[in-house]
């Protein structure tokens, strides 16, 4: 899952990037409203965390312009302005959720998780469940038929993306775009290696390969 974090406070952004990174999200960070306005629609983000008090261009204007250009990516607004009038203003501008500062990092993690599931049309349960697989996003472990399977960070990221898009045909480049932030070198071989390792841990049928098109998860589970 690839996230865009737009936050002008550097210490907070540092903390958020670190904690979101630990949770297996690829995070791009921008501090200026004008940059965010452009990059929000030019890169395929799965979710955007937007602060409203931004230099360059106010967050609400950025959000309105994104929605005006047809951006459907879920946007979580992060702001110190927590009055209901401002909250309504934010949601009218097109926000999907609204978190007021100061917040607990766990709260942010839960909101992001819920928004991503809502955007993928997956029910919001404690565990992300598809077929016989259940993924614990907090602990980064997977349960299959009652057995816990431990995953590496890379495997966890890929499996989560697959599980949030069950039955969809995903090309290698698509996967790479959503699993790595803008600054990481994208090597499609890495995806292949990770897919093979997941198959080794969870069974061959979990991920189906279509030559020339990509991978499909959940076809046979």
């Amino acid at each position, binding site marked *: 899952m690839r996230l865009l974090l737009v936050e002008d406070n550097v210490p907070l952004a540092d903390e958020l990037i*670190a*904690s979101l990174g630990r949770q297996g999200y690829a995070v791009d960070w921008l501090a200026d409203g004008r940059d965010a306005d452009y990059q929000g629609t030019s890169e395929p983000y799965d979710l955007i965390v937007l602060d409203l008090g931004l230099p360059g261009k106010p967050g609400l204007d950025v959000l309105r312009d994104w929605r005006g250009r047809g951006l459907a990516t879920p946007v979580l607004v992060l702001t110190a302005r*927590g009055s209901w009038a401002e909250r309504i203003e934010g*949601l009218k501008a097109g926000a*999907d959720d609204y978190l007021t*500062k*100061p917040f607990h990092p766990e709260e942010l993690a839960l909101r992001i998780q819920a928004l991503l599931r809502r955007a993928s049309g997956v029910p919001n349960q404690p565990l992300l469940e598809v077929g016989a697989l259940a993924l614990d996003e907090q602990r980064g472990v997977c349960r299959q038929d009652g057995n816990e399977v431990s995953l590496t960070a890379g495997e966890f990221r890929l499996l989560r993306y697959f599980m949030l898009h069950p039955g969809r045909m995903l090309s290698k480049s698509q996967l790479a775009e959503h699993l790595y932030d803008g600054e990481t070198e994208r090597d499609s071989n890495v995806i292949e290696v990770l897919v093979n390792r997941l198959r080794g841990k969870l069974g061959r049928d979990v991920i189906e390969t279509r030559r020339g098109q990509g991978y499909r998860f959940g076809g046979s589970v």
Partner: protein
Amino acid sequence: MKSIQGRLGLGLIAVLVLVSLVLLQASLWLFESALRRTLADNLREETEGLLVAIVRGPDGVQLDPDRLSPRYQRPFSGHYFRIDLPGRTWRSRSLWDASPQWPSSPGLADELIEGPQDQRLLAYRAEYQRGGQRVLIQVAQDYSPILQSFDRVRLTGLVLVGVSILLLVLLQRYVVRLALRPLEQARQQIAQLQEGHRRQLDTDAPTELQPLVDEINHLLGETEETLKRSRHALGNLGHALKTPLAVLNSLTLRDELTEHPSLRTALREQLTQMEQRVARELGRARLAGEALPGTFFDCETELPALFDTLAMIHARGVSLDWQAPAACRLPWDREDMLELLGNLLDNACKWAKTRVRLTIDRTDEGYRLCIDDDGPGIAPSRRDEVLARGTRLDERRDGHGLGLGIVRDIIAAWQGDWALEDSPLGGLRVDIHLPQRVARTPERTR
């Protein structure tokens, strides 16, 4: 109630009554004294006539009946005389058996004297010397018809005065109302201002009122601007305080602190206290309260947006609905009202199983807002505690304490009151009564 109209009316009536009565009485008095002078002349002529009627006859001095007016013959005719000669007295026949108290000094008597048959007599006494004899002639005329006609005139005058005062007062009211119409308009506009139906007074007031209207408009604008500025400044302050708090919150999750769980707990506890304090005080400072008269909350535009927001936040199948009178405008600040309803509905949504309902009703003294949910409710014995502390007892879902604290501040600022009750939906009902600010002019002059 001190009303300009009333004061002017009272003053006018007092002056009119006083002036008319003095005029009426003075003119009657002047007229009567003129009349008495004329009557005195007439009576003197009568005495002279009577003097001439005293003739020397065969039996000595006698009164010549041919020279006497017949009215002296008819009993109680109202015209009487008495002639005293040394050793002789003539009384007019008209006196019959009456003997009035004739005046003792010459000229017209100051007082009226009692006559026969309740007549009041104006008497005149004249003394003559005739043939070496002292002749005392006293005549009297019945004055009661004149008195009666004076009474009639006085009565008519009083009626006329009354009628004219009535007419004048009506006319004055009309004129004053015409002149005070701009004031009345200003009063109505201020009432509308308080009900939230307008934001400014009309500026086309007459010159006398113009400075007042301008000043009120200026103050309104200034208050609104100040509120906006202070809200903005508070927003900035909040931003400046809350972002570092968010950073600190994240820092407590650092791996370095995992080895010191007690330190982490203490830090988080302090941070939570700071957060709550900051949020509470900033929230309280944001309240407009009753500062702005021209504000209102338009249910039909604001509530759908609020409910959309709530539905988005609580996307777990709770059905939300609201009921309000058609075209309902609550005369309170929009942001305050959103904060009040937002917090209470948010709270209700967190606890409700399936339904949350907001009902707004007009009452005699203002408005009643009811927020119902079908959640677990609060035991009656613990409700007072919740109201007093502004916290929900079981705080396992975040944000309750804070939200209810703000709600309590808002209701207090509006001088309303609230109660927690059993809801017909099965859960908790928050019942809020808000008194409406009234323009202090219940008197309707038309």
